[in-house]
C-alpha cells in the first residue's frame, strides 16, 4: 500500500512544485529588472555617481601649468612626456608637446600630488576604449602654447582666477589628504 501512496504523492509533488515555481517566475514579469543599462538609459550620467577622489584618466589644464616638470620626474613609469622650447627673440618659453600615454598610466596619482598648481589632475573619465594604442595618447598641447607664470599679488584675469582656484581646491581635496599642504607651501 505504501508504494501506491508514494506513487501518488510523487505525482502530486511534481504538479504542485511546478505550479508554485511557475507562479514565482510569472511574478517576475511584473518586477523591474535589476540591470543598470550602462551607458544609456540610466537616470544620471555615470560620471556624477563616482566618488570624490576617483582616479580617472589624467587631464591637464595648460593655462595654469608652470612647466616645472615635477610630474614628469615623479611618474614611475614615464607615461608623461613634456617638451619645452624658448622663443629666442621674446625669451618666452612655450610647450612643444605635452603627451600622456593612458596605456601606460597606472593611476597612482603621484603626478597630481607633485603639481604645485594643481594643473594635472585625475578626471572622472574612465571610458578609454580606442581602435589603436596611438589613440590612447592624450595630446594636451596640440599647438605650441606659452607657459604659465604666477603673478605676484594674485591673478587679475577672471578666467585665470577661476582656474587657479579649481587647481588649488583639487590639491587640497585630492592630493594632500591631511589638508592645507598646498596652501602652506605657497606661503
Amino acid at each position, binding site marked *: 500500500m505504501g508504494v501506491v501512496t508514494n506513487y501518488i504523492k510523487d505525482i502530486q509533488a511534481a504538479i504542485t512544485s511546478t505550479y508554485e*515555481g511557475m507562479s514565482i517566475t*510569472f*511574478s517576475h514579469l511584473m518586477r523591474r529588472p535589476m*540591470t543598470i543599462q550602462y551607458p544609456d538609459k540610466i537616470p544620471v550620467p555615470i560620471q556624477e555617481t563616482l566618488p570624490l577622489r576617483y582616479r580617472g584618466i589624467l587631464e591637464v589644464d595648460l593655462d595654469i601649468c608652470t612647466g616645472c616638470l615635477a610630474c614628469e620626474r615623479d611618474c614611475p613609469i614615464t607615461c608623461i612626456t613634456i617638451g619645452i622650447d624658448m622663443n629666442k627673440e621674446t625669451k618666452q618659453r612655450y610647450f612643444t608637446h605635452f603627451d600622456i600615454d593612458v596605456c601606460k598610466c597606472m593611476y597612482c596619482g603621484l603626478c597630481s600630488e607633485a603639481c604645485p598648481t594643481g594643473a594635472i589632475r585625475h578626471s572622472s573619465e574612465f571610458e578609454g576604449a580606442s581602435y589603436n594604442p596611438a589613440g590612447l595618447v592624450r595630446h594636451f598641447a596640440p599647438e605650441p602654447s606659452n607657459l604659465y607664470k604666477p603673478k605676484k599679488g594674485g591673478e587679475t584675469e577672471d578666467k585665470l582666477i577661476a582656474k587657479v582656484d579649481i587647481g588649488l581646491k583639487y590639491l587640497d581635496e585630492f592630493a594632500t589628504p591631511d589638508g592645507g599642504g598646498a596652501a602652506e607651501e605657497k606661503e
Partner: protein
Amino acid sequence: MQALLDQMIQEGAFAGVPKEVVYTIAMVLTAVVVLSAFVAPLAGVTSWLERRVWARMQSRVGPNRVGPQGILQWLADGIKNIMKEDIIPTAADQKLFPLAPYVVFMGFLCAFVVIPFGESLIVADLNIGILYLLSVTSLVVVGILMAGWASNNKWSLLGGMRSAAQIVSYEIPAGLSVLTVVFLAGTLSMQGIIKAQGWRPWDWFMFHNPFTFCAFFLFFTAALAEGNRTPFDIPEAESELVAGYVTEYSGMRFLFFFFAEWGNLYVIGAVVTTLFMGGWQVPPVTDNPVLLGILQFLTFFLKAYFWVFVAMWIRATLPRVRVDQLMGLCWKYMVPLSFICLLGTIGFMFMDTNSRRIFGAITLGFAIATIINFFRRVGFQFRSAKPEAYWKPHI
C-alpha cells in the same frame, strides 16, 4: 497553384519543358518562399522573444539593442553565423557530419505541411495528418544521432544516444495522448480533428472529460521532451556534455540545429492547439471568406503562440532533470497515466451526451478555478517579495 501552372504550360510559357520539371521547380520555389517568409522569421522572432522572456523572469533585460527593443537580434545573429568559418573536424565523418543539420531541419520543416492555419490555409490536408506529423518529427532523432555519431566525439555521441533514447521513449505517451483525441474525433486528419471541435471552450477536446484534460498535459510534457526542451534538454546538457550533439558544429550548421529547435516550439504549440484547443475555430461573426480566413489564422496563431510562451516559461522555471529521472518520469509515470487516460476516454465515449457534458463542465470549472488560484498565487509571490513594480513589457 496547380491550375495556374497548367494554364501557363498551355500558353507555352515554359517553351516545351516537361510538365514534371515545371512542377518540381514550382514546388521548390514555393518551399523557399514559405521558408524565408514565414518559418525563418517565426523561428528567429521566437528566439528573440524567448531570450527576452527568460531575461525578465530572471530580473534581467535581455537583448534590446538591435532594432526597436532588439526585435532584429535574430537577423544579426544569423548574419554573424553565416559569415563564420564552417569547421569540419578532420576526424569527423566527412559525409554525415555536414548532412546531419539538414536532416534535423527537414524533420521539423516537413511538419509544416499538415499544420492547419485556417479552414483553407493548409498545404496538404492528409487523411493521416497526425500520424504523418508524429512520423516526420521522429526524423529529427535520425539527424541528431547522425550528428552525434559523425562528430567522432564522446560528448556528441553521448548526447545523440541520450536524445535517441529520450525521443523514442516519449513517443509512447505522446502517441497515446494523441490517440485519445483520435478516438473522439474518429479521424486522423488535422482538419477533421478541428472540425470535430467547436469555438467554445467547452467544445474543445481539452474539456471533453477529465481524462482528456490529463492527456493534454501529458501530451504537452511529452512534446517538450521530444523537442529537447528544458527541463528535458539532457542531449545538450552543457554542465555534463559541453553542448551534446552540437559540440563540434560551428557557424550556420550550428544555427540550423537551433533554427529547428525554435521552429519545433511553434510546431508543438500548433499541434497542441489543433488536438486539444479547437484549432482555428472562430465564432460565426462574418461571411466574408477573406476576413474569416484572417480571423482563423490569427486565432490559431495566437493559441499556438500562447503555448510557445508557456514552453519558454517552463524553461525559465524548472531545472534540468537527470537521465534516470527523465526515463523514470516517462516509463513509470507518463506511460501508465496515458494508458489510464486512453481507457477513461473510451469509457466516456459510451456515456450519453448529457451526462458527459456534466463531466466536461466540471473539468472546465476546475481549469478556471486553477487559473484564478494561480493568479492569486502570483499576486502572493509578488507581494511577499516586496519588489519594485514594472508593468510595461518593454524596457
